[in-house]
């Protein structure tokens, strides 16, 4: 595996892995209007980073734990007085703030906070790559297995019930997948931009798709293109890599939306 010695190759593979895992999840986040939920889970994960650095265990585990905890608490508390978006706002920003404060207590360890907030794809090592592709494989396998059930439950919970499915279980599957994707993506795009990698490729794919499956595939292509292109642009213009990837995705979103507008105009 000589080619993995090149940090640019590792970065490209990491970006592709995240784009692949984020695409189908991003579609569900858009369809179920969970965008803020994704954002909140991602922001909370900085607390996981702080915890894993304090108690020196794997960052992937720390982030996964906090993301799951966050999702669990929000599900448990929702419908008890506060609107979900208020609840998410409280939880997400508190976790982010607690995480930032906790990180400041860490003497002796020098950490680059920016690397966690915005990602540091160029510093991805072999072990990180293994985590990213392992996580992506688990996420894709879960989607492969539950795809039809997830789609039915997303369409209408009662339709799922009538077909003998439990919509709450499908919700749980999505929550777990979300936590896993956040944990996988933190190294690549950072806490603040994970939600962008979920939502922007899916939104950009919408005008081009006729079925849910094609939307997920196109989203994966757009995400992959953004990752590879963004990496190249960042290298050439010496810009921060994570934000450059998101900028490119946003550009693609603008393009497909514009194309859709033109087409709708031509139909009229």
């Amino acid at each position: 595996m000589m080619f993995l010695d090149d940090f640019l190759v590792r970065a490209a593979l990491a970006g592709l892995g995240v784009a692949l895992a984020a695409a189908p999840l991003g579609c569900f986040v858009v369809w179920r209007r969970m965008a803020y939920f994704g954002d909140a889970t991602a922001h909370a994960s900085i607390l996981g980073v702080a915890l894993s650095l304090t108690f020196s265990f794997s960052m992937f585990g720390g982030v996964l734990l906090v993301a799951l905890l966050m999702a669990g608490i929000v599900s448990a508390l929702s419908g008890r007085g506060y609107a979900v978006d208020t609840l998410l706002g409280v939880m997400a920003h508190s976790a982010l703030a607690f995480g930032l404060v906790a990180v400041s207590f860490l003497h002796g360890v020098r950490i680059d906070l920016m690397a966690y907030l915005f990602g540091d794809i160029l510093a991805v090592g072999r072990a990180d790559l293994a985590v990213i592709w392992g996580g992506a494989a688990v996420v894709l396998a879960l989607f492969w297995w539950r795809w039809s059930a997830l789609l039915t439950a997303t369409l209408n919970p009662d339709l799922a019930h009538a077909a003998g499915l439990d919509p709450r279980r499908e919700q749980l599957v999505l929550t777990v997948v979300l936590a896993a994707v956040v944990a996988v993506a933190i190294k690549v795009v950072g806490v603040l931009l994970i939600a962008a990698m979920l939502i922007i490729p899916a939104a950009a794919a919408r005008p081009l798709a006729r079925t849910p499956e094609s939307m997920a595939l196109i989203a994966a292509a757009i995400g992959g293109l953004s990752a590879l292109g963004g990496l190249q642009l960042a290298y050439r213009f010496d810009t921060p890599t994570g934000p450059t990837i998101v900028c490119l995705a946003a550009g693609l979103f603008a393009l497909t939306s514009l194309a859709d507008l033109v087409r709708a105009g031509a139909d009229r």
Partner: protein
Amino acid sequence: MNLVDIAQLSVRLGGKTVLQGVDLTIRPGEIITIVGPNGSGKSTLLRSIIGAVAPQDGRVTRKPGLRIGYVPQKLFIDPTLPLTVRRFLSLPQRVSDADARAALDHAGAGGLEDRQMSRLSGGQFQRALLARALLSRPELLILDEATQGLDQPGSAAFYRQLEEVRGTLGCAVLMVSHELHVVMAASDRVLCLNGHVCCQGAPEHVATAPEYRALFGSGTQGALALYRHDHNHTHDHAADPHHGHHHPHDPGGAGDPPPQEAAE
């Protein structure tokens, strides 16, 4: 064996008792219509049957492995979700193109395969929902206000289609409606619901029952259902499941002929 047995079902939703002491048995092949004013627990009863609502008290027993075809009251499809009719039919179980085409033809929605669900008209949408429900070869077809949003000719056409479908499939049908003048004639049994079972029986029987009159009025020949219901009487089901009680504000007119418009 009965498809569904409901015994003394009570359901509370958000601290409010929606259903109380409901008994209902659904036998293979019968057509049951549930009528009742808004908020009378009709949809909740259907949702308990499909298992989406847990009973507070009582039992809902489904025949093991019962295949249910469910047509919901309203299906909102988020505009961000691209979905052709063909793809919709394969949720959650994949079906062959031939089966999908047959189901669409059967439901009166032939040739709509490649259309987006969000672009269908109200009538086409309901037929697509019906086609999907037929694909599971249901023993029990459940329709919740399936013609809401359709005009009168549209609803009448939908129910004609439904009768034809039932004729070939032989499945039991449980439907909720307030458009009695359209559906009643086809029903074996009508259940008048208002949190509890007010009265039930053959359509002609219910149409002339004082409880039904109290719920829906009588002056319009059944052409207009009135949602006015303010009596808080109690029923003694043990003594007489049907009409042993008296409604103090029964508007009378029990001698009016039952609605006939449905007999087309």
